[in-house]
């Protein structure tokens, strides 16, 4: 499956609000997977200096990742497909 990054601008967000968003993302991904649209929230990075959050999802398409975020009611600015690279791959 492809990996996508969902970028969010969340000024004033707190760790608690990120926790709440994470719960919603996880449950919506599980629900969509159960419905036959496999999608998984992999991890997120919060950038405190810019109030930006980068959330990585695995899914078959950008549309499916977008739907998971819409169902979870988490605002986002853009969704990009990414190419993963790790030290083990070099």
């Amino acid at each position, binding site marked *: 499956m492809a990996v996508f990054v969902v970028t969010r601008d969340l000024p004033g967000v707190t760790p608690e609000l990120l926790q709440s968003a994470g719960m919603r993302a996880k449950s919506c991904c*599980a629900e969509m997977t159960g419905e036959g649209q496999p999608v998984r929230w992999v991890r997120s990075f919060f950038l405190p200096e810019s109030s930006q959050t980068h959330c990585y999802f695995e899914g078959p398409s950008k549309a499916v990742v977008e739907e998971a975020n819409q169902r979870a009611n988490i605002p986002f600015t853009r969704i990009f497909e990414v190419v993963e690279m790790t030290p083990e791959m070099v």
Partner: protein
Amino acid sequence: MSVSDLVASFAIFAAKQEGSEEVTPDHILLGCLRTISRFGIARIGPWGVDLEALGVDWIRRPEGPTPKVAYSSAAVELFDRAARIAGAEGRRKVEVSDLLAAFAGEERGLMGRLKRRHGITNASWRTAISRIDEDATESRKRSTNGSESGEREYLTPEEAAEALGIHVQTMRGYIRTERVPAFRLAGERAIRIRRSDLEKILEPLKG
């Protein structure tokens, strides 16, 4: 699957059962009640809430095509409030008690109806919620001290939860959703879980 995952999945199921396109706070409350319920009765302090009386089919599972559901803005606020309550208690993970506590000041919807029907006040609700985890802890202690659970093949739900280091309500959720096989003693209400079956709910971490 954590307890909050179980609540969310029951909440989504409740919304789908109702044919709603949104998961509302009412669905989340039903999800909480179903998570802590046994045989369709959720016990919170002195109150026993019958899920059937609230229109919840606590046995049926989703069948056939169901509508796609999204969290409503009110549901988002409820999750946010529960996460802040967990944070105030020094925890990061949100438990079912945090979600239930988030309903304490709610006068509308299902919570409002429960308050009026059972004479529940904000303070009496929070008092009862604060004991949910204590009761489970006491129950775990009793089951551990009173038996040789490390050697027996068949465990009570409390002993099985203790063996995995999870909340007993989580284990009951696994039993209800058939993620772990459970057996009833013939003619009795008592439930037993085979120790070897506990491995079925353990998933290896992907590298």
